[in-house]
């Protein structure tokens, strides 16, 4: 795999994870989930917009990569996002990590990496 291709996969992955964290921040409704109080509506709209921008960048980079690689090879790389999102949600959104959740997340990540290495 060329360094440029690897770099583009990383860009696609990180923008995807950033988008998910933005979406969750924007989606929280007062009293729906435990944790810090949700931001005001205007701020949530901005965060949602940032999420859309991140996902759009991820989409076009992914589209470019799909023209070069098989989908079944490329897509599993996004499996790494499971681990990053789970850790990110704990760090930035103060979500609780439980032992089964961590074990399940690791199993999914290893499974996805195994698929991607095939």
């Amino acid at each position, binding site marked *: 795999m060329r360094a440029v291709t690897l770099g583009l996969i990383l860009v696609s992955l990180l923008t995807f994870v950033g988008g998910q964290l933005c979406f969750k921040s924007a989606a929280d*409704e007062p009293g729906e989930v435990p944790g810090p109080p949700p931001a005001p509506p205007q701020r949530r709209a901005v965060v949602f917009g940032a999420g859309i921008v991140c996902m759009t960048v991820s989409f076009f980079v992914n589209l*470019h990569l*799909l*023209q070069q690689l098989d989908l079944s090879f490329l897509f*599993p790389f996004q499996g790494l996002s499971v681990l990053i999102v789970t850790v990110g*949600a704990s760090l930035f959104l103060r979500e609780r990590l439980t032992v089964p959740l961590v074990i*399940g997340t690791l199993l*999914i990540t290893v499974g996805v990496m195994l*698929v991607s*290495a095939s």
Partner: protein
Amino acid sequence: MSPPSEPKRFATLSPIFQVLLCAVFGTTSEVLLKVGAAHTQHTVSPLPWVDVSGLMSAWTWVSIVFTLLSLVFWMSALRTLPLGLAFPLSNSVHVLIPLSCWAFLGEVINGRRWCGIALVVTGLLVVARTYANLEKRL
């Protein structure tokens, strides 16, 4: 048992179906995106790194519709589910996509890939147990 718990129970059952629908629509979107990308593989893009040539295929636009549908269900599920729980569950796409590629695009799944799929399914079951525990608490 008590009537006040019913709305909460319904509210916690609903997001899991929304996550599953999100995964199904996401899988459909990715397969169609691959078809669209393959159709425009030899089309020259005006921008080398942000490839917009794929937009010249109708399959890509249908894929975008499915992506939006997936996003709608995802945003709805995120209102009630923690991201750290919902996101691993949404990774059922890593089982659905290789199977779809094998079934519809003729791509090959070897033994190692099958093992990976089995691990993902095991992980999903472990995470689903967390969801069941959350549902009990609610």
